[in-house]
């Protein structure tokens, strides 16, 4: 099980990259560019709060998993 836990660390790192890319290109930036007030606030929350949390958090989580921090 420890091998699986460590191997999945790579998956979480990849997921962080994917989430960052699609979060910005499909959600955050189009909202910022729309020109509507609601969209502006929503876009800022996506870009400044949600994406750093998901990407930064998943990177740290993936690295910890790879390093065997969650091993039994």
């Amino acid at each position, binding site marked *: 099980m420890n091998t*699986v*836990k460590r191997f999945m660390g790579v998956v979480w790192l990849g997921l962080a990259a994917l989430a960052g890319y699609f979060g910005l290109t499909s959600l955050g930036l189009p909202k910022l560019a729309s020109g509507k007030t609601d969209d502006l*606030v*929503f876009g800022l*929350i996506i870009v400044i*709060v949600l994406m750093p949390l998901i990407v930064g958090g998943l990177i740290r*989580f993936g690295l910890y998993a790879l390093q065997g*921090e969650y091993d039994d």
Partner: protein
Amino acid sequence: MITEAPKATSNTRSLISVIGASSVGTLIEWYDFYIFGSLATVLATKFFPEGNPTAAFLSTLATFAAGFIVRPFGALFFGRLGDLIGRKYTFMVTLMLMGGATFLIGLIPSFESIGYLAPFLVLVLRLLQGLALGGEYGGAATYVAEYSPVGQRGYWTSWIQTTATIGLFISLLVILVTRKSMSKEEFDEWGWRVPFLVSILMVLVSYIIRKNMHESPLFAKAKAEGKTSTNPLKESFGNKYNFKFVLLALFGATMGQGVVWYTGQFYAMNFIKTVCNVDAIQSDELMTVALLMGTPFFVVFGWLSDKIGRKGIMMFGMLVAILSYRTIYEKMYQTTNLKNKQEVVASFTADSTVASDPKVAGGSIKTKTVTRAYTDGTELTEVTKLKIAADPSAEPAKPEIKRTVKITDTDRWSLIWLVFIQVIFVTLVYGPIAAFLVEMFPVKIRYTSMSLPYHVGNGIFGGLLPAVATYLATGAKEANTLADKAGTALPYAAPYLEGLWYPIIVAGVSLAIGLIYIKNKAQVVD
């Protein structure tokens, strides 16, 4: 970091009084938080006038910032205080802060009286509400858990878990009673302030009850022995050993729990009102019934988690939610889909009126009202409003169409059961989570460490659900419209279901992480 648990000495009677005092306070905090959302339509007319971009910006900030962004900061600020000076005093402060902010919202003069100061003050007080809520939940859950015998924490903390749902009921109930005790004009004029002002009485009662409570025995013991943290933030998030569990709690549990909670309680309500177009009163009633039916299961699954472990129950809740959401929402959609019903042609009525537009000089508004009835008793009212400019050469405005469907008892019960199933998913993931989080972190940094993942998972991942899901569904609908105009195949067979990909993916990732990394036994036993 597994430490030995002290033997529990609390008897059931004192435990019940602890649960009661903690739950009442938390319930009032949820009441205060929800009252703003429940009165959003009235508040918009008083503080955020339509067509004013600055007021609209402040309104959006008040909605998003307090609900999503500020809560984790409240968790950090009050969590730190709770780990430094104690649970009891900290959640007394959050209670007073929440009550004071809610009361003051009820006193703010309208936009007409004091201009931009009104929406600005609302925003500030709403931010204080968010901060207070961020600090309250972790304190209450920690306090109750630390009073509970180790093998019964799931059961006792599950009472705290019911407060979010009951707080929503009470907010709706107080508004309903206030509305019924006066005319519509009186309510719009000043009656809407009553639910805010009433809060101070409830908070005072709760304050008196809580004031007589003692500090949590585990924290008091740690403090007496000099084992409390001097820097909880650093120990929680600067220490790799603890921080890895904060991340695990977030990605393996609260993130998935947050989206399942918001889907079952808020997205379902929004879907029934705006996609199925069910009459607002009928929607509120059926949601209330489904939530009431589901609420006892918070306690059932909290209790069960003491017997068979927390992980299995929470992961099962996420799994069944992921697998069944699209089927449930398709069934909800088809239950109210008028294409599946037989129209009574003779009952068709149409009426048209033209009135002057109060906002545009020389302009007018043409209103067309169409009603249709169906053989099963369903009724449709469709109101189309078209603004006509004074200048005939001006570009014609897009008509606003509002459809309201009054459903039959049979359809209402179908929807109640479909929402109830989702509430059961909510109780599966939410019932055991307070005990799960408490048992992940040691006493000295517990308040801080458990509050942050809870509020990021619920406030940010869950709180963004309505906006992200609506965005996905709208995008799918627009893509279909474009394809239809171009004469090509429609890319989405059911665009109204596309918004569900957000909870499905987020809960899916959380389920995978939880299954692989979370253990079925307590990380910390104290």
